[in-house]
């Protein structure tokens, strides 16, 4: 989404005297050797963007010599910039996987039905990835998403059980859902308070949250799953399609969440502050941004999304699935990191996170279809995850040095 910014504008300010711009282009030329060697491969991709950049350049009247030197530098810089767009790489990997599996199992893997099943089976992950992306962009982490999901599902179902159980009306389901969402947002906000006011590292706050919310869910249910989720909920949201379309509700709702919050992240002040805080919290503070308040909102958002995921899970399974979401946090965080978000904060996109989440899902479905042992998926994802983070560390060091 932010990749819309990638147009390469080369603006020579006319106000600068000739001697000045000469000095500057020298500086640029010196920098170019520092660019990583991998660039050459990337340049081909970037060339279509470059001419449009030239068209945008608003200040012609630049000496041709400095122009040539600058053009070379600009291409290299654009190449280096593209490397930082990790979601490009992730997207390439995803496409290769899909093409490969479609080729190996023609007519099976690429059917709409497969994608629809894959989407439904991952709907709650998709929703949680939305919140987790915001949190990781602030250089935080939320390990509690799966536990908050269960908590929210338990609270929502508890209300429904007391007001009609399996035959509960839509009004009851509505109130129960709102209670579930509020529970999620509340759990998130409490974690946000822990991170900002108690100044405990997010890893620890949300590890504590993970344990405590799981325990609370077991306390409320007495250790065994609530069953008898409202039939109306299960038959529509959980298993049904949006009327008149082949689109499952699970997919519609989760993609709606992705799109709405993806747009908020990319185009609003709230999103900008999220990036700024992850990039340099002290600078954000000095710029007058209420950093603590924003962080609390971000953790509350992650909780809210986990709450929504809880409703979706309840609708799909018809029970509270107490033990079914213990590793959701790992799935979700893996998706965000594979999608190119930096654990140092400030870098990443919603689109990248969605692609990052899709890779393990596609791999699993594909391996199943071509009849390979699906445990290979775990081995591959584990290795790729470590590789992705090591690339992130490398980029971080590269920039610290600059």
């Amino acid at each position, binding site marked *: 989404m932010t990749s819309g*910014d*990638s*147009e*390469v*504008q*080369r*603006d*020579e*300010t*006319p*106000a*600068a*005297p000739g001697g*000045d*711009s000469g*000095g*500057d282009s020298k*500086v*640029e030329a010196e*920098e170019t050797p520092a660019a990583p060697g991998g660039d050459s491969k990337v340049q081909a991709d970037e060339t279509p963007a470059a001419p449009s950049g030239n068209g945008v350049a608003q200040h012609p009247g630049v000496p041709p010599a400095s122009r040539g030197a*600058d053009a070379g*530098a*600009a291409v290299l*810089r654009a190449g*280096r*910039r593209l490397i*930082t767009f990790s979601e490009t790489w992730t997207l390439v990997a995803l496409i290769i996987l899909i093409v490969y599996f479609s080729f190996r199992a023609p007519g099976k893997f690429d059917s709409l039905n497969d994608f629809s099943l894959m989407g439904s089976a991952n709907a709650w992950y998709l929703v949680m990835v939305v919140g987790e992306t915001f949190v990781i962009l602030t250089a935080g982490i939320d390990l509690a998403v799966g536990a908050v999901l269960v908590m929210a599902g338990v609270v929502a179902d508890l209300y429904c059980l007391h007001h009609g159980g399996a035959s509960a009306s839509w009004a009851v389901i509505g109130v129960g859902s709102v209670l579930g969402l509020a529970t999620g947002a509340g759990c998130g906000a409490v974690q946000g308070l822990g991170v900002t006011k108690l100044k405990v590292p997010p890893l620890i706050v949300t590890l504590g949250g993970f344990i405590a919310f799981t325990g609370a869910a077991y306390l409320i249910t007495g250790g065994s799953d609530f069953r008898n989720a409202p039939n109306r909920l299960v038959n529509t949201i959980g298993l049904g399609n949006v009327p008149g379309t082949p689109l499952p509700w699970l997919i519609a709702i989760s993609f709606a969440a992705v799109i709405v919050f993806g747009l*908020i992240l990319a*185009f*609003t*002040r*709230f999103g*900008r502050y999220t*990036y*700024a805080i*992850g*990039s*340099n919290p*002290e*600078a*954000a503070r*000095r*710029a*007058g*941004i209420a950093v603590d308040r924003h962080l609390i909102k971000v953790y509350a958002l992650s909780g809210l999304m986990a709450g929504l995921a809880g409703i979706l899970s309840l609708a799909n399974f018809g029970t509270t699935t107490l033990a079914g979401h213990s590793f959701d946090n790992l799935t979700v965080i893996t998706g965000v990191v594979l999608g190119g978000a930096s654990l140092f904060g*400030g*870098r990443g996109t919603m689109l990248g996170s969605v692609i990052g989440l899709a890779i393990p899902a596609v791999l699993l479905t594909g391996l199943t279809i071509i009849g390979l042992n699906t445990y290979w998926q775990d081995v591959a994802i584990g290795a790729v995850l470590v590789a992705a983070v090591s690339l992130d560390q490398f980029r971080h060091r590269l*920039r610290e040095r*600059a």
Partner: protein
Amino acid sequence: MTDPMPTTVPVLEARGVIKHYGHVLALDEADFSANPGEVVALIGDNGAGKSTLVKSLVGAIRPDGGLILVDGKPVSLTSPLDARRHGIEAVYQDLALAPDLDPASNLYLGREITLIPFIRILNRRAMRERAMTAFAELGINLPNIGAAVGTLSGGQRQSVAVARAVAFASRIIFMDEPTAALGVIQRGRVLDVIRRVRDRGVSVVLVSHNMPEVLAVADRVEVLRLGRRVASFTASQTSVEELVGAMTGALEIANGSGGPR
């Protein structure tokens, strides 16, 4: 440029400012004044209280005593936002930029131009265009306006931080060692920018250790020692030796050529 007349009301003034850090007295009734449209250098040895004084004047810390006056009226600066509302901006030594955001986003950080009141959609085009104008006005040359600030050279980052302060300051800009990390060419350019800002009628306070630089760009020099102002010189009538003398206390004449307030 402007002759500081004795009757001029300082745009920003500190009177008898006191600040304790535990048992350490960082500012011992320190005075300071900056007149409209002048470049004042604030110098002093390490630990003389320069940073503490600057932080008090930009609202980053609250002094324990004394007065701060803007255009002759006492004000209370409880946060950097307060100071900004009075047209006081600062370029911090660490620049306070978000490395993952582009120059325009950094320029408008915390002051974004937005479109719809509640949702606050960023008006990127307006911010980018105005940022480019702001950079051009200062003769700042950024080859790629869309690149993250973290990918820029040290001099370019410095330029972004300075442009941000200049774009929003209506009264005075504090610059804490703005040239310390720069090469010779960029150093000259920052000094140029300081002169341009001054010519637009905005005062500049330059905190620096570099005496020749101070004498080259400042109209006046105020010297802090042990938390007090010990001297105030007109830059054109003093020398490096005299400044160093005042800083170290070797020159124990109460006031240099600056005269009493």
